């Protein structure tokens, strides 16, 4: 049984290598950002070791760089990570028979990437938390090490070059956002967030505009999608009535 677990962990690890490699690109950007934000190497690595969440860590160091308070940073991180609830809820039924301790441990390693690999594996093969753990450990290693490498690059970048490399963060986020924008409500979300964040960053004290724009824009997207659904139902209703 032990060796079966080990085998599953290794399988999960190996299947996640391609995503691990792409994770390292984010990792490099994170490391560069952390260096520019004035974190030291231990803090940079500690964040990857204990927080272990890509978009959140980049957000946190960006907010440190612009001088946000700790409380607003922690809240923002929490909000960004709310999507984990959805991923956990979708994997949980497959892992019903695993022990609570094991689930407490493996869930720490859950990321967008390991979730994606594991979920698709569970459609084909009997689900195990060992596989999920192996997949998560892969991302953990790639993410942690690329962050450290990025940190040293970050320290080599001169002030003049930093105008260019600061854009790496913007570009990385654009690379994350664009694939998420597949529907009209998602377009609404992005536009509303853009407007609120610009106005908010000018007029709202501190960095609370990030949370405010995040919540209002999500709500705008939600409303848009409800309205579109209602309209569709109405149209359907009219058609059936006419027939």
């Amino acid at each position: 049984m032990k060796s079966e677990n080990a085998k599953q962990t290794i399988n999960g690890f190996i299947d996640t290598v391609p995503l691990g490699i792409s994770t390292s690109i984010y990792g490099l950007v994170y490391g560069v950002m952390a260096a520019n934000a004035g974190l030291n190497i231990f803090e940079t690595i500690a964040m990857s070791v204990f927080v272990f969440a890509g978009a959140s860590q980049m957000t946190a160091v960006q907010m440190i760089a612009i001088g946000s308070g700790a409380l607003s940073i922690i809240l923002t991180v929490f909000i960004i990570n709310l999507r984990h609830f959805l991923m956990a809820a979708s994997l949980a039924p497959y892992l019903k028979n695993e022990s609570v301790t094991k689930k407490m441990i493996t869930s720490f390693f859950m990321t967008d990437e390991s979730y994606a690999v594991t979920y698709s594996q569970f459609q084909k093969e009997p689900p195990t938390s060992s596989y999920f753990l192996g997949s998560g450990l892969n991302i953990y290693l790639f993410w942690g090490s690329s962050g450290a490498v990025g940190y040293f690059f970050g320290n080599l970048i001169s002030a003049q070059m930093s105008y260019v490399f600061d854009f790496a963060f913007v570009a990385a986020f654009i690379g994350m956002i664009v694939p998420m924008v597949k529907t009209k409500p998602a377009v609404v979300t992005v536009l509303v967030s853009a407007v609120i964040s610009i106005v908010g960053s000018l007029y709202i004290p501190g960095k609370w505009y990030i949370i405010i724009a995040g919540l209002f824009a999500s709500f705008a997207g939600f409303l848009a999608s409800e309205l579109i659904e209602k309209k569709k139902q109405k149209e359907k209703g009219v058609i059936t009535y006419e027939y």
Partner: protein
Amino acid sequence: MNTEIILLIFGAAIATYLTRFPLMIFSGRGDISKKTVKFMSFIAPAVLTSLIVPIIFIREGSVNLSLGNLYIPAALITVLAAYYSRNMLISVITGISTVGLLMLLF
């Protein structure tokens, strides 16, 4: 080591873990409503957008729409690169090289 940063790291770590384990353990006892799922699906694009848009448009405390703001054309080109490639590396490299190139040209 900066104490505030250490506290922040642990706070962020706890906040993150609190989103990871609960539904893994307590699932099946009442699912999340469809509306909540829908709302939450918009959170990631909403928050990520609010982080970068001010960086693109605001320089020294006010909105800068002038040609001198190289981040605007670079962001547009990066959006296209991300849309067509769906690839992180290509998006980042396209973005950085666009800013670098524009800086050399202007």
